[in-house]
C-alpha cells in the first residue's frame, strides 16, 4: 500500500495497527477503508465483546471506540479491556455521537472525536496517536 499524502506512518513503520470498534456497519467500513488507504493495518469489531476477542491475540497502537453500542457498550468494553490488561499500551480515540462523549474522561481517552467528524481530521488524529505510540 502506498504512503498517504498526509504523511501518516505505515503500519510496518510503527509496528502498531488500528482497531475500529463501532456497531454501525457503514461507519465502521468507511473508517476502515479511509485508514487502510492511508496505509494503516486496520482491523474491525462490531461490538465490545468481539473487540475484546480481537485484542486477545493482537495489540494495536490505537483503538477507535464508539460508545453507544448494543450489548457491551464502549464504557463496559474499556473497563473490561483495562481489567484484563489487553493492549494496555494502545491509545484510545473515543468517537461517538453521544453528548456523553464529553463525560468520558474516566475512560482515559487520548483523544475524543464527536460524530459527525471530518475525515481528514480523523486521519491526522489517528496518525499522531499512532506515532506517539511508536515513539
Amino acid at each position, binding site marked *: 500500500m502506498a504512503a498517504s*499524502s498526509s504523511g501518516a506512518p505505515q503500519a510496518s513503520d510503527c509496528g502498531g495497527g488500528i482497531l475500529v470498534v463501532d456497531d*454501525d456497519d*457503514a*461507519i465502521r*467500513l*468507511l*473508517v476502515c*477503508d*479511509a485508514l487502510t*488507504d492511508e496505509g494503516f493495518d486496520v482491523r474491525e469489531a462490531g461490538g465490545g465483546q468481539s473487540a475484546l476477542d480481537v485484542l486477545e491475540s493482537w495489540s494495536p497502537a490505537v483503538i477507535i471506540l464508539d460508545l*453507544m453500542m448494543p450489548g457491551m457498550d464502549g464504557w463496559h468494553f474499556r473497563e473490561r479491556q483495562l481489567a484484563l490488561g489487553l493492549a494496555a499500551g494502545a491509545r484510545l480515540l473515543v468517537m*461517538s*455521537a*453521544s*453528548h*456523553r462523549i464529553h463525560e468520558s474522561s474516566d475512560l482515559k481517552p487520548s483523544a475524543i472525536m464527536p*460524530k*459527525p*467528524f*471530518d*475525515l*481528514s481530521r*480523523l486521519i491526522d488524529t489517528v496518525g499522531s496517536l499512532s506515532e506517539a505510540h511508536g515513539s
Partner: protein
Amino acid sequence: MNLVRPSRASPSPAEAQACFTGRTNRFQDGFTLALLTEVHGYPAVPAVDPQRLAAVAHSVEFYADDAHLLNNLTHFVRDALLNGQSVVVVATEAHRTELALRLEESALPVGSWERLHRYIAVDAEETLRLVSRAGMPHEERFRSIVGVLLDEARDAASDPALPVAVFGEMVVLLQAAGKTKETVALERLWNALAESHSFILRCAYPLSLFPSAGDGDALQEICGEHSTVIPTQSYAGLTEDSERLRAIAILEQKALALETALENSSRLLVQEQAARTLAQTALESRDEFFDVAAHELKTPITILKAGTQLLQKKLRQGRLDQAQLEERLAALDQATDSLTAIVNDVLRACAT
C-alpha cells in the same frame, strides 16, 4: 442530734445513721447505704391494682411553664406545713432554690423548717442515681433511701399520723432522657411504697416532654400510674363545671383541627413526592430521548459527511472504480433514507 429513723427495709439503724449525717449533702455517703441494700437481679416492678391506686394520693401535674409549676408547688408546700405535715422535696437544684425563695416570701423561712426536719429538700439527680442500678430504678435501694427520708419527715411532723407531703422530680429526669419504661417503673415504686408509708405525692412533668402525637402513649402510661391528673393551667384554673365542659369542647376542637391539619400535610407531602418523582422521571426520559435522538440523527450524518469526503479523496487520488463508486453512493443514499425516517419520527413525536 439526729432525727433520722431507719426505714422498714434494711439497713440497720446504725448504718442508716452513719450514712445520713450531713445536712448540706444528705447523700454524701448515701452510695454506701445503697450498696448495703444491694440485691442482685432486676425484678420487674408490678403495677399497683387500679382500685388500690385510687387510694394512693399520687397526683401528676402537666405544666407549660416553670412559673406556674413553682406557684402551685409553693401552695402545695405551704398548705402542708401550715397543716402540721412535713414536706419532702426531691427536685432539681433550680426548682429547690426558687421554691425556697418563694416560701421565704410567703413568710415561711425554709431554714427554720429544715432545722425542725419538717422540710427536707434533696437533689433529684443525685437521689435518682442512688436509687438506680444499671440505669433502672431499683426497688430495694428506693425503699431504703426514700423510706428513710419519709420516716424522718413523718417523725418530725406535729402529728406522725399525718401523711408526709412529697414533691418528686426524679421521674421527669428519666422521661427527659426518653426513658419512659424507667419512668413508669419509678412511679410504680412510689405507689408500692404507699403500702408501708403514709404520704401524698405530687409529680409534675413539663408538657414539652410530650411534643408529638407519638408521645401520647407515654403520657397515657404515666397518667395510668397516678390517682389524680392535673392538666395545664389553662384548664386546671377553671372552677365551674360549665366552664370546664366548654374548655373540653374547645380542646377537642383544637385536637380535631390539628389532626385534620396533620392529615392534610401528610397528603400534600405524598402528592408532592409523587409529583417530584414524575418530574424527575420526565427529566431523565427527556435526557435519554435527546441522547438517543442525537445519536440516531448524527449516525447517518456521519456516514454522509465522511462518506462524501472519502469519495472526494479517492477521486483525487484516482483510486475509485465504477463498482466502488456505486457501492459508496448506495451507502450515502441509504444514509439519507435513514435520516429522513428519523426526522419524520421526531416530528411525529413532537406533534403528539
